[in-house]
């Protein structure tokens, strides 16, 4: 019952109101002369320094869903759930140089989305459209999942109702507020709120990581309890360590997820909003602080085992909602005022990424669909306006996903999202380095990668589900005599690269036109202070018919 959680609910609501206020005030923070431009609304003026970028990108990549789902995975499967740690270590050296180059070329040409870059690099609106749609489709369920994060907290506080509407009303209200201040303040809102969100999360986790082991008898006991649980369970893949059959899955999942992360449009939004190349490179060294946090949060799953937490029942009969284990652990172990703070940290943690993701998806629509196909002569102010409205539509869509569909559907989609966003790797990430691939080859590779990826995901079954039961593909389905599994995304992107390469050679042999590269070699190294990079300069090639404000 919610009455037992009154203190928690009050603290949660107060902090929620505080950040909502900040969200509206953010429009005036580092205010530009003219907000009616995508660079201002959608990229915060492209002028964020090291600290803001750290909070913004950190708050963006390490989402509420991550904080709820990773420990839930560790709670359920053990070592396998810890893949999030190598994943978020490998990512930064991997993109250290790539992102700096992408920043430079984007600032010289006024690119707002990865598809903008692809369009100019490969001279292909079709390829750009493919990249844009992939980005939007991959991002939508991710936004919906942030709601799953909030819902886990609300459930633990006993805020549930009989009817569908009553159960979802708090979330609808929360998202309406979020939509309103994102509409008004753009990227500045999540950037400002991220300070509160991350501070709260750091406090909560530091306390949890010191206080809970003390209460539960120390780390030795916690791992022993987890070991005992997995020994007793019949599932073959779980355990405190990896076994011979899931090591390949662990490594490919970590590596594949790392490749995918910065292909998500919302991660690039944070990167493009930074002031210069040094801010990005320094952040690649500083962002792993969040990985440490994530590693410690993952271990909350074992603490929940040691504390005998039983997850609340799920949406359908006979299932459990394992996402509730961390909120329940806090509720059980902490005084209620501190639980309130912890819940607020998770709840606010959902708002930051949801805002950035909806902005990123809206920018993709505006730049690569609206301006490309619907209204070629759109002014900067019209672009900003379309983006603002699209961000509202995107959020309504996300809420509808949660209210009208089984949340499991969003989780499945997000799993697919990781696989499909990886299919933009050859065009976006490799495109930063080379123009060797033919635009036709890239489209063909994308089709092949998507097709294979979907087929593989469809084939994956579990004792409870026939299809789409995870991302671990059993290699025996390819005819190998083994129990090993592999991450679908890696196989799909390899097929993508192979097809892209073969078709490139074929098209080149057939002398099919390749288009003109809109970028120059020098563009990839330009930095702040370059006469064509300064934030005030909007006279880039792409914004030609813009009336001077």
């Amino acid at each position: 019952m919610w009455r037992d959680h009154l203190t928690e609910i009050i603290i949660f609501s107060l902090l929620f109101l505080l950040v909502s206020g900040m969200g509206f005030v953010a429009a005036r923070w580092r205010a530009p002369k003219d907000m009616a431009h995508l660079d201002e609304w959608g990229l915060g003026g492209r002028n964020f320094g090291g600290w803001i970028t750290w909070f913004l990108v950190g708050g963006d990549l390490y989402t509420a869903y991550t904080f709820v789902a990773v420990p839930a995975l560790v709670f359920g499967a053990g070592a396998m759930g810890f893949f999030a740690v190598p994943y978020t270590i490998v990512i930064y050296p991997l993109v250290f140089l790539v992102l700096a180059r992408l920043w430079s070329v984007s600032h010289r040409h006024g690119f707002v989305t990865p598809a903008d870059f692809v369009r100019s690099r490969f001279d292909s609106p079709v390829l750009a459209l493919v990249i844009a749609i992939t980005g939007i489709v991959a991002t939508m369920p991710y936004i919906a999942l942030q709601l799953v994060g909030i819902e886990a907290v609300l459930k633990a506080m006993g805020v549930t109702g009989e009817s569908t509407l009553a159960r979802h009303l708090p979330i609808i209200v929360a998202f309406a507020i979020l939509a309103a201040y994102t509409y008004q303040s753009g990227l500045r809102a999540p950037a400002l709120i991220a300070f509160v969100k991350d501070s709260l999360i750091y406090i909560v986790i530091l306390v949890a990581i010191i206080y809970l082991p003390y209460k539960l008898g120390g780390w030795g006991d916690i791992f022993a309890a987890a070991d005992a649980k997995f020994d007793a369970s019949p599932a073959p893949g779980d355990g405190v360590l990896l076994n011979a059959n899931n090591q390949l899955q662990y490594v490919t999942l970590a590596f594949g997820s790392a490749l995918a992360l910065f292909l998500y449009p919302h991660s690039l939004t944070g990167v493009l909003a930074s002031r210069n190349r040094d801010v990005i490179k320094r952040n690649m060294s500083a962002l792993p602080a969040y990985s440490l946090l994530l590693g410690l949060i993952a271990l909350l799953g074992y603490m929940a085992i040691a504390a005998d937490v039983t997850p609340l029942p799920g949406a359908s009969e006979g299932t459990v909602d394992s996402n509730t284990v961390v909120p329940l652990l806090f509720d059980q172990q902490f005084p209620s005022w501190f639980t309130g703070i912890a819940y607020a940290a998770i709840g606010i943690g959902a708002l930051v990424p949801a805002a950035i993701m909806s902005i990123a998806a809206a920018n993709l629509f505006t730049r690569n669909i609206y301006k490309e196909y619907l209204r070629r002569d759109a002014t900067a102010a019209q672009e900003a306006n379309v983006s603002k409205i699209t961000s509202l539509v995107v959020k309504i869509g996300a809420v509808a996903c949660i209210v009208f569909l089984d949340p499991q559907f969003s989780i499945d989609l997000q799993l697919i999202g990781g696989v499909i966003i990886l299919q933009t790797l050859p065009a976006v990430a490799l495109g930063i380095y080379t123009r060797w691939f033919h635009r036709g080859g890239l489209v063909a590779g994308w089709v092949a990668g998507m097709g294979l990826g979907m087929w593989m995901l469809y084939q994956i079954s579990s004792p409870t589900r026939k299809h789409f039961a995870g991302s671990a593909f059993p290699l025996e389905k390819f005819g190998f005599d083994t129990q090993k599994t592999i991450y679908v995304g890696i196989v799909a992107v390899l097929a993508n690269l192979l097809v892209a390469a073969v078709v490139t050679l074929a098209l080149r042999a057939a002398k099919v036109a390749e288009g003109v590269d809109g970028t120059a070699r020098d563009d990839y190294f330009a930095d702040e202070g370059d006469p064509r990079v300064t934030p005030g300069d909007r006279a880039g090639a792409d914004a030609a018919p813009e009336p001077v404000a």
Partner: protein
Amino acid sequence: MAAPDPEAPPTASTRAKDKSPWNWLLFIPIVVPLVPAFFNGDSPRLFGFPRFYWLQLAYIILGVTTTTVVYQLTKKRGDR
């Protein structure tokens, strides 16, 4: 504030800016965390943590150190 550099045209010096042999160091924190043979074991334990957990958390330090070193070393080259 962002007045263009009064010095010579930037093309020649910017061109070399992100090419450096030090960049190869970045492969270390990409490859090492992805070798299960290193971390997939129980002993030795550290503060009650099996090796699987403390070693992978320690790789964070490896990653931070490498990116910091590469940043510092390549920055000097560029600013010359």
